[in-house]
Structure formats: C-alpha cells, structure tokens
C-alpha cells in the first residue's frame, strides 16, 4: 500500500444545464480512496452522491451534464483530462461499476453470459472459449449456483438478488482496482441486502480492490466502511474514519442524519425542512437553513472551509470548527436534546 | 406515471365536477340545460330540413354535411372550448405548457385563420365558374409566356404575360380564381378533418368504454373488430367503398370516421381498465357507485386528454386521405378540394406551374400545422405518453 491514494477526487464540480437553470449537483467535492479500503459516501437522496460517483468515469449524460471543474486522479492519472478513448480503458478495465437497480442494469435481450464475456473481451485479448470460462468462474465466485448452466439464461430468468450478483460479476470481469457501487442493495429485499453486502466484503478481500460505496444507509456504513464522506447538497460536510464519523459525529448535518435512525439516544427524530433548490443553493453553509445551531456567520460567503475535529484526518465543514468558535456547543446541545427526548419518552410511559 | 396523481395538482378542467359546482335548475346544471337546448335546436333544424325539403328561412338550404359540421362545432364548443373557458387557471397552465412550443403556437394561429376563412368564406364567395377568358392567368408578380393564358388579364411585355391583383394567385385551366379555390378547399379540409374526427372520438370512446364496462363477450368481439380495423390499410377500403358508392364528401367523411376509430377505442379501453384499478375508483365502488356511473363521472373525463391528443393526430391523416382520393378523381365532383385542384394542374406543369403548387403549399402547411399542434398537445396535456 503506497502513500499515494488510489483515487483522489479534488474540488469536483458537476453541473447540469437545464431550461430551468443550472443545477449544481456536485459543487466542489473532495475525497480520497486508498488502496484496499472501503469508502462510503452517505447523504440524503439528491445530495449529489450518485452524480459524484458517476463523474469519476464521466458516466453522467453530457449534455445536459458538464464537469466544470476539479480533478479526478486515479493511480496518478487525471481521468478528466483523458480522451473518451483513453477513458474507456479505465471504465470496466480498472474501475468497475455496480448500479442501484439490478432490474435495469442488464441488457434484457442478451444472455447474462454474453454480457460478462463482452466486459472481458472489451479489455482482454481473450478468445471466446477463454472468456466463457472466465465468465462462468466469475458467476461462480459471485455466488450463482450452477453457473455453467445459467450462462445462457436471460436476465429476466434471474431474481433481483441474483441479477445484482450478475451485475457485480460484470463489474469484476477485468479485476478492477476500484469498484464503485452506487446503492447496490437499495432495490433489494432486506434479507438479500445483507447477502450482497457480505458478498461485496468477501470479494473486496479476494480481489484486493478498493470499494467506493454510495449509500444513504448508515447501518451499511457502520458494517463495511473504513472511511466515510458525508455529502449534503453537492458539498462534503464531514469526512473521516468510520469510527470518527459515527462515534464522534461532528457536523450538525451528520448529527441530524444519525438522529433519524431509530434506537440512538432513544429518539428517532426526522430532519425538518427539505433539501435546498440545487439551482439556487443558499449562500454560506448549504445546511444552515435547516441547522439548529446556525449563527449569522453560517449564511455568509461560501461553504465553510474544512476544520479538524479531534483527530487530524477527521474534517468538518462547519464554522464551529474554525478558530474562535466553540465546537462543544453542538455536542452539548445535542446531549441536552437527547435527554429531553428520553424524558418525553418516560412521560409517555408514565401515563 | 398514471398512478401517482397528486390531488392538489389534479383539479384540471376535466376533473372538476361541474354538475355539483353549478347552480342546479330542474335537476340539471346550467351547462347540461344549455347543451340539451342546443341539441334540441339542432334536432329541430334537421327535422325541419327533412320535412320542408327545400330552403329554410334563416338557415338557407344546408346540405347533410353542413348539419354534421354544425353538430361537430356544437360538440367542440361544449366539450373543449367551454371547459377551458370555465377553468381559467387550468387553461393558463395548459397555455404556458403549450406556449413553450413556438412551432405549435404558429400552427394554431395558422389553423385558426384557415378555419375561420374556410368556414365563413364559402358563404360569401361565389362558387368558381368556368370562365374561358380567364384561363391560366399567372399569379401577381410573376409572368409566363403570353400563349399560356387565353387572354392575358395583365400587361404583356416582351411576349410575357404578367399577373395582376385581379387574380393574386392566378387562375386554373377552367379560369377559376385560385384564391377562391383555396378558400373552398379550406372548407373541405376542415370539414373532413373535424367531422370525421368527431365521429372517431364519439364512436371510439363509446366502443372503448363499453368494452371496458361490460367485459366478456362484448369486450372480446369489439376488440377483435378493432384489431381488424387496425390491421387493414383503411385507405384501400376508402378507395373500394368510394368507388362502389360514388364520391360524395358526405359519404367520404362517414367512411373515414367509421373506419378509423379503432385506435381511439383501444386507447380508451385500456385507459378505462387501468383507471378502474385505481384507488379513487375503488373508493367510489365501495361507496356503492354503479360501474356505469363511475365510467361516466370518473373514467371518461380522465381519458379526455389522451383522446383529444390522439384525435388531433388523426386529423392530418384524414385530410391527406381526402386530398389523395380527390387527386385520384374519387372525390366529390361538386366540391373544390385541394387534391382535385392539384390533379388538374398535373398536366399543366410545363405552362401553368402555379395550379398544382399553390393548393399543395396550403395542404402541406395545414397538415404540418395539425402535426405540430398534436405534438404540442401531447406534451402539454398528456405528459405520460411519448411517441
């Protein structure tokens, strides 16, 4: 494991030009993925996490999408500066993609075998027989029973969970260094979700690859992430190791996200308000209109610069972590809120 | 998606319950009273025409076709214009959607002019008569060899006959003023397009809803028949029938209308079946509403957008079919259809190029305008469907 991260996204900006105005889906996002680790990007729907992940290999539709700035350095190469032809070597060859909905992710009129073989032969100089053997091996490794027999089946003959396994096999066809998985379990049954996550963990070890997992499920994060990036309205709010972010959540938004979960501090509090209009985001911190701790400075200028919370790698984009502010205000307030919540629950019981 | 209708956004003109909103009189709303009154007046007019058999006071001597055209306009007024007038909020919403499509706005303006001129013009203009002296006059600002027209109405310079404002678009080989022919042709195209479409909408909706309502054998038989109608190229049935029974415009329109409702019926049936699965319909059913009542009050109003769009897109086909038949000489010899005028000019291309050109330009733009309009209506009224 070298010092250099495998993937380094720096100040990435992806906008969509529409009739109704420019949508700043990703507006200055930075994060790293090191070799062999799992990084989770979390956030509500519409926070720009999918666009960010698809911008890495420029899979967003262009037009209307446009990557207006930043760099995506993968193994020393800025992917954004590559031509389409050069980029295709990375897509599927070194970076695999798994999408949210396995129902639509496979071509309905090609056999699953053919789709894996295609992925292999796009990057490897493999003969038909060789590719077929590798495809069957992959199907076997992603847990498709009787892989050789299912090679010639069509996607509609597979269940949702099995389809997702096939999609993963396609993504792994060329031993990628990085697997980008965009909410790979959201569309599946709860029992199947766990299996697919387990599979991803096992495969990561087996293939020795890095995984960038996009999710809104903090339970998933806790289970498999090494490090976490919290996104909100196209900006990174907080990033750090999974322990730092989940055990010592520091940005008010992260706190709010965790508060939405049942079973934490006895309170299951939904986050009030809605995501800002992406065409006209609020000035200052994107979260300040919904933030319980907002002070006047939060609404001024651009998103606050990253400050550190506790440990050096744990960064938070919040004015409370700048010099002259006392970050403990956030935690104290929260502790008070939690107690209040507990108190209310007690009152309910006493009736 | 069809299913996620938001109640707040759905107060469109077609869903508002007029019967309940309007002041009742005699158990009927003002709207229904007016509609029934107009229909009664219409029936009376037709009866009087049949009984007298000659010219009527005030009404003149309308042909069966004129009666049908009036009925079409009546239906259009009550089912399209008035609902839009009654719900200005929704009308504004549609207009905003529609306005985004510049081509469609221009088309609407053009069609409004063609409609107005075609409906009113023929009552004021004399029917074109054979005028041997005025044959093949060139349009104004153009000139042809002086031997093309019988006698040149304008100046003859260097052996070239120049067009005059007397015949701004020239004349044909019978000396008919092209401008007059154009206006009469507008009437034919509008009658064909609108009347036949009205028939298609009425029959298609009736068959579609009955199939959905009764199900079973009725559904099976009517949908098989629709399959047949949609399989067979109707143009050739038009040819055969018009050949066998002679080409009156009245017959042509009836045949067009009665052979082309398959698509609308299928659309209405599938929408009706789909709608009847929806929650609010189930709620009504649970409240004890009869199926027929539900169809009339909930299903038909809800499919009207789809039907209007589909109907608008059949108009260009019908206008082209009439023009084609008239071009073949199968049209009504007593009318001045654009297709016929174009056919007359086919043999005159070398000398009088404008005879085929002028009506064709209008035919083309009329059909184009209806296509643009239908396309924009689909976008504005029926965001669900593509294609």
């Amino acid at each position: 494991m070298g010092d250099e991260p495998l993937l380094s996204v720096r100040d990435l900006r992806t906008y969509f030009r529409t009739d109704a105005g420019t949508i700043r889906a990703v507006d200055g996002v930075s994060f790293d993925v090191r070799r062999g680790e799992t990084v989770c990007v979390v956030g509500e729907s519409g926070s720009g996490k999918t666009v960010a992940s698809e911008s890495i290999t420029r899979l967003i539709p262009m037009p209307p999408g446009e990557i207006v700035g930043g760099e995506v350095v993968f193994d020393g190469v800025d992917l954004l500066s590559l031509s389409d032809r050069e980029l295709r070597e990375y897509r599927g060859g070194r970076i695999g993609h798994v999408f949210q909905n396995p129902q639509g992710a496979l071509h309905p009129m090609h056999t699953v075998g053919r789709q894996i073989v295609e992925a292999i032969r796009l990057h490897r100089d493999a003969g038909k027989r060789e590719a077929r053997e590798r495809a069957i091996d992959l199907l076997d490794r992603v847990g498709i029973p009787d892989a050789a027999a299912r090679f010639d089946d069509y996607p509609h003959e597979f269940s949702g969970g099995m389809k997702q396994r096939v999609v993963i096999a396609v993504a792994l066809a060329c031993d990628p260094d990085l697997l980008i998985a965009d909410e790979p379990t959201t569309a599946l049954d709860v029992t199947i979700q766990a299996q697919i996550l387990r599979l991803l963990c096992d495969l990561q070890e087996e293939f020795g690859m890095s995984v960038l997992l996009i999710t809104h499920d903090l339970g998933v994060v806790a289970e498999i992430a090494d490090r976490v990036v919290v996104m909100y309205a196209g900006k990174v709010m907080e990033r750090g190791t999974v322990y730092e972010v989940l055990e010592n959540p520091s940005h008010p938004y992260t706190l709010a996200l965790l508060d939405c979960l049942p079973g934490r501090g006895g309170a299951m509090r939904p986050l009030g308000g809605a995501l800002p209009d992406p065409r006209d985001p609020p000035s200052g911190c994107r979260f300040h209109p919904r933030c319980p701790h907002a002070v006047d400075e939060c609404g001024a200028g651009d998103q606050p610069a990253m400050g550190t919370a506790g440990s050096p790698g744990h960064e938070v984009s919040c004015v409370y972590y700048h010099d002259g502010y006392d970050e403990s205000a956030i935690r104290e307030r929260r502790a008070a809120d939690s107690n209040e919540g507990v108190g209310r629950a007690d009152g309910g019981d006493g009736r | 998606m069809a299913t996620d209708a938001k109640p707040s956004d759905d107060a469109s003109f077609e869903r508002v319950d007029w019967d309940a909103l309007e002041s009742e009189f005699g158990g009927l709303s003002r709207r229904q009273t007016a509609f029934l009154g107009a229909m009664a007046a219409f029936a009376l007019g037709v009866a009087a025409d049949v009984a007298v058999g000659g010219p009527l006071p005030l009404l003149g001597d309308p042909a069966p076709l004129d009666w049908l055209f009036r009925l079409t306009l009546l239906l259009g007024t009550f089912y399209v214009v008035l609902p839009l007038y009654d719900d200005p909020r929704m009308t504004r919403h549609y207009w905003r959607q529609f306005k985004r499509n510049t081509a469609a706005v221009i088309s609407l303006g053009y069609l409004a002019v063609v409609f107005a001129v075609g409906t009113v013009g023929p009552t004021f203009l004399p029917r074109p008569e054979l005028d041997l002296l005025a044959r093949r006059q060139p349009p104004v600002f153009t000139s042809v060899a002086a031997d093309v027209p019988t006698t040149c109405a304008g100046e003859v310079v260097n052996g070239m006959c120049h067009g005059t404002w007397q015949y701004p678009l020239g004349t044909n080989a019978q000396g008919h003023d092209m401008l007059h022919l154009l206006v009469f042709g507008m009437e034919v195209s509008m009658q064909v397009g609108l009347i036949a479409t009205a028939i298609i909408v009425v029959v298609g909706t009736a068959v579609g809803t009955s199939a959905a309502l009764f199900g079973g054998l009725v559904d099976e038989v009517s949908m098989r028949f629709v399959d047949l109608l949609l399989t067979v190229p109707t143009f050739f049935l038009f040819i055969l029938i018009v050949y066998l029974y002679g080409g009156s415009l009245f017959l042509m329109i009836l045949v067009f209308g009665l052979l082309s409702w398959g698509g609308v019926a299928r659309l209405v049936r599938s929408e009706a079946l789909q709608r009847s699965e929806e929650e609010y319909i189930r709620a009504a059913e649970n409240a004890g509403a009869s199926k027929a009542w539900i169809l009339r009050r909930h299903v038909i109003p809800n499919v009207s957008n789809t039907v209007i769009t589909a109907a608008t897109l059949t108009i260009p086909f019908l206008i082209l079919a009439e023009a084609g038949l008239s071009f073949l000489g199968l049209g009504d010899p007593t009318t001045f259809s654009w297709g016929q005028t174009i056919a007359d000019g086919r043999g005159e291309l070398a000398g009088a190029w404008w005879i085929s050109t002028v009506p064709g330009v209008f035919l083309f733009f009329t059909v184009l305008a209806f296509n643009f309009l239908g396309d924009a209506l689909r976008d504005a009224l029926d965001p669900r469907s593509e294609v």
Partner: protein
Amino acid sequence: MGMGLYVAQRVAWALVATFVMLSLTFGLLAVTPDAQQAQFAFQQAQEGASADEARETYQRVTGKDGPLFDRYKEYMIGMVTGDWGWSHTRSQPAIEAVADAYPYSLMYGIPATVLSVVAGIGIGLYSATHQYTKADYAGTFLAFFGVSIPNFWFGIMLILLFAVHLGWFPSYYDTSHGVWTLANAKQLVLPVIVLSTAAIASQMRYARAESLEYVHADFVKTARAKGASEWRVIRHIFRAASVPISTILVADILGLLFVASYLTEVVFQIPGLGLLSYRAITQNDTALVLATTLIPVFVAIVGNLVQDIAYTVLDPRIDYGDR
C-alpha cells in the same frame, strides 16, 4: 402458452381476418348497383329488349342469378383458388393483370423500402443518441416534413423542379426502357425519393422515440461503465429498441408504401398496381378494382402475421399469454 400455440393462434387470426375481409367485400358488391349491368340494360333497350329481360340475361351471363348464398360460396371459392374475376377492360383475368403490373411496383418499391428502413432507423437512432443537438433538431424537422407533405404533390413538385425546369429526369415513366438500364434507373429516382420520404419520416420518428426510452436506461450506463465504445452502445440501444421498432416496421411500412405507391404511380404514370387500379376505377372495371385493392389488404394481413412471429424471435421475454 407455448410458442407453437401462439404462432398457430396468430395464423388462425390472419385467416379469420382474411375471411372477414372477403365476406365484407362480397357484401359491399352484393348491395351495389352494378354499373355494367346498367350499361348492358341500356344497350339491350336500344335493341328493343325490355329492361327486366336485359337484367335477367345479364345476371345469367355473369352468374348473378343464383341465390345469395350460392353466389357467396362461389365468390369465396373463386377468391381462394385464384379466380378473381374477369377484367373486361383488359380482356384478361384480373389476377393476370395484377401479375403483369406488380414487377413495376417492385422495381421502385423495393429500393424505397430498403432506403426507408435503413435511413429511417439510422436517423432515428442517431437523433435519439444525440438528443438536443442540432442534428437531432434537423432530424425531427425532417420527420415533420416527411409525414406532412402530401406525397402526390411532392412528386409533382419534384417533377416541376427536376424534370420540367432542370430537365435532369423525365417527367413520365417510359416502359420502353429495359429493366436494368441506366435510363430506367434514372426515371425511378424521383419515385423512390417521393415514396421513401414519408416512410423514412415515420420510421425515423418511431425509431427515435423508442430508442429514447433506452438512451438513459441503466443497461446502457452499464455498457458504458464496461468501457464499451459509443458505437457499441448504440448497438445495445438498437437491440433493445428493435423489438418495438419491428412492431411497426412490417405492417406500417407496407401500408404506408402501398398507399404512397398508389398515388406515386399515378403521378409518374408507372404502370404498376396503383396505376392499374386507378385505370380500373376510371374505366369501371370492378373485378380489377377489387383485385388491386384487396391485394394490399392481404399483404397487410400477412405482414402483421410475419411481424407477430418476428416478435417471438426478437424478444426473449415475450409472454405468449399476453396478446
């Protein structure tokens, strides 16, 4: 339901449709006053016979004196066995007149079909995969132009411009040229353009709309994520859209081309099926009118059948109980 049963069902439906159409035309003919009969009666009256006698003679000669059902049976058997009546204007069986004429229709109909399918689908796919670009707008405009222009008038305008004005092509078809001569190819250029314009437009519109359904589909994204080239991605889109496209391909294109060719032949005076039919109409040759209008009807029925069966081959997901 298995595939065999499905195909059998579609074939049965085609037979029923044919049967219904034949019966319908018989019904139409049976209740129509016969123009030839009137003419015959007129001649007989001139020769001093009574109108009733004339009618009887005519009906006996033409076999129209039997009971309705017998006549129906005879008509249906005749139609099935290829006895489509006698063309009195051409003094040959109607079916032979048709056989003589159809090579002329194919001569320009086949190039026009190939052109419209290839160009229509090609432009449609390109337009869909390049949505909101100038090329897409141009394609859409072309489609509106093509479906809106009355093809008989378009033909006349082309003749006016290219034949009368510029003199590049002849304005009427000349049968004296051999089939494989340059002169024949030259005089077929304008008819092919006229015929294919509308077909390209309708095909393009449909192909574009269907392809658009898939342009942003997840599997297309998967293909891109695999590293597939744009060309390969377009092939993926086409494969998915080919099923719905094929559903209009056969029937609609055939219908469109038949209608268009009818008018085109009259405009260019090409002695194919359309002109044959047109002349039959103007000369009151009922048997020939019937033959020439029924053929497109049957071709459409067969086209629909072929299309339904093609569907089963193209789409692995088809549920045979569905239709």
